[in-house]
């Protein structure tokens, strides 16, 4: 069944279209920067973008920062939201179940397929960004110097937001400037960032998958999960909601930036992994409990 889900993923045009679009954004940005040699000043724009002209090898991190806030969650929510509800709408769900495919088995296969998709997109973005970075922005030099990685996870602000009001955080970031990173270190840290982002997306996927077992509308499930993320983003920036902020799904989304500090700033990374693990376990458990006992009337 797992193989079947992967075949369905691979043979679906949507997979490749969304993948291409997600990889295209950093590519287009790289072209503009290469042509104009203009980068946002440190602390503004997407994280890392201000540093990419020093080394194209830093561009994968900048590309991940670009696609993380919108592109990735949308793609993940659409794929995960469609997983059960989409099969219900086309009517194939009932035929899979009487094949028979156990309900738990089907859910596990869907989860593996979604995870593969998320990893595929994140790795594809990283690889294409590395290629475009090195080709368009200059070859990598040994000993990359990370000057500023932009607004990080320490201030409770999302990437791309104006940096006003996050001065303590910004200060913490710049204090790391000048520390050289070898290419090997950079590669290790990029792998760490990929893992962290993938796990964050699994949190989104778990919410969308749960909604997908409730409704038979794939669109409803995807939008529901996105609505939860938007609400979380709003609450994360709201000082009045400080009490619940540590538990919001998007609170530590940008903690992967801390992989690029010297030394690695583990506190928020650990918390990010932990909170996403909780979301994944809770929502997958709810999805399973609902799906395993539900009447399939679609």
């Amino acid at each position: 069944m797992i193989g079947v889900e992967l075949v369905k993923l691979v043979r679906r045009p949507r997979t490749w279209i969304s993948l291409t679009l997600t990889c295209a954004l950093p590519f287009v940005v790289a072209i503009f920067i290469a042509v104009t040699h203009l980068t946002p000043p440190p602390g503004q724009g997407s994280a890392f973008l201000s540093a990419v002209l020093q080394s194209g090898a830093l561009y994968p991190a900048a590309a991940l920062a670009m696609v993380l806030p919108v592109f990735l969650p949308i793609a993940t929510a659409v794929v995960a939201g469609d997983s059960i509800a989409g099969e219900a709408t086309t009517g194939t769900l009932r035929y899979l179940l009487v094949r028979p495919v156990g309900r738990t088995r089907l859910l596990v296969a869907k989860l593996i397929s979604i995870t593969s998709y998320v990893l595929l997109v994140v790795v594809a973005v990283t690889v294409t960004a590395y290629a475009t970075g090195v080709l368009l922005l200059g070859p990598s030099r040994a000993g990359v110097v990370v000057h500023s990685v932009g607004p990080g996870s320490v201030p409770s602000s999302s990437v791309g937001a104006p940096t006003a009001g996050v001065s303590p955080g910004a200060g913490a970031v710049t204090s790391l400037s000048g520390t050289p990173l070898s290419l090997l270190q950079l590669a290790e840290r990029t792998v760490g960032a990929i893992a962290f982002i993938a796990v964050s997306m699994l949190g989104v996927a778990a919410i969308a998958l749960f909604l997908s077992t409730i409704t038979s509308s794939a669109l409803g499930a995807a939008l529901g999960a996105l609505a939860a993320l938007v609400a979380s983003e709003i609450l994360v920036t709201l000082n009045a909601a400080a009490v619940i902020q540590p538990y919001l799904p998007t609170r530590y989304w940008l903690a992967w930036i801390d992989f690029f500090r010297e030394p690695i700033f583990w506190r928020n990374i650990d918390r990010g992994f932990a909170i996403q693990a909780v979301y994944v376990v809770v929502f997958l458990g709810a999805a399973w409990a609902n799906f395993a006992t539900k009447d399939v009337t679609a």
Partner: protein
Amino acid sequence: MIITKALTKRYGAVEAVRAVDLDVREGDRYGLLGPNGSGKTTLVRMLLGLVYATSGEIEVMGRRMPRHAHEVLQQIGALIEQPAAYPHMSARANLALFDAAGPHGLAGRRSRRQRIDEVLEQVGLAGVGRRPVKAYSLGMRQRLGLAAALIRKPRLLILDEPGNGLDPRGIADLRELIIGLNETGVTVFLSSHLLAEVEQLCTRVGVLDSGRLVLQEDLAALCAPTGRILLDTPDADRVCAMLDGQVEQRDGQRLLIRHADPVELNSRLVGAGLRVQAIGPHRRTLEEIVLSVTGTGSDHIGGTSEPRERGGNTASERETQRDRG
């Protein structure tokens, strides 16, 4: 093959299936009849473990459902309401995927390809198996659904409204296919709201009305001679005079006579110099039988002449029919 005891499904206050005792025997071609919204689909889904019963028991091939669904379903081929397939893939790719999804898919590419060829041939899609399903007509999709049901050589076929979307040619093909499979030992359970389809195809009939099984009998027994004779004669008046008291109904030249032996009656009439156009034993049609037990016609909302266990539940019955329809 399929035995249910007091099988009941309630959706909130609405009883879609009420205390159904189904008895499908091995080798049957069983036709479940009932108007739209009578609970056929809910019943079929319960047999397949898609919908969980509120109360009652289901036994399929001697094993309890849905507890043993994993073993039982492997020997069942099913078509549930509309067929479904992944539209951007070909019929062949769809069949291969569905086969691979189940436990112990046909081992090896070659045997799978061979079996797909066989079933596509069986359902009459041999020439178009490589086209994407989104280009298929409704009838072709129905044939593909049948192919998917057949791919594992099931012992039991459960077909919910299999004639949907098929043209007369397709329905004839379907009938031939089902009878052929049944002759090789496959038990067939199908639901339909088309009396003619069931009458031509089935050996045993169940009738569902507002969720209740109001009739279950062999078709041969149902349509056995009624002990009356149907006589067509130009000398109807003289026949009536001669058989005074035995004529139950008269419609112009046609008489319904209470008498057991048509041959004996014929020779008596001819001996008396009466002319006979046609004579034969009277049989009830399936339609008459079904209408006599259900009381209301197909798609009739809110039947009033059906038998009732307790008074005052007409409103919920109306709701049943509307909701499940």
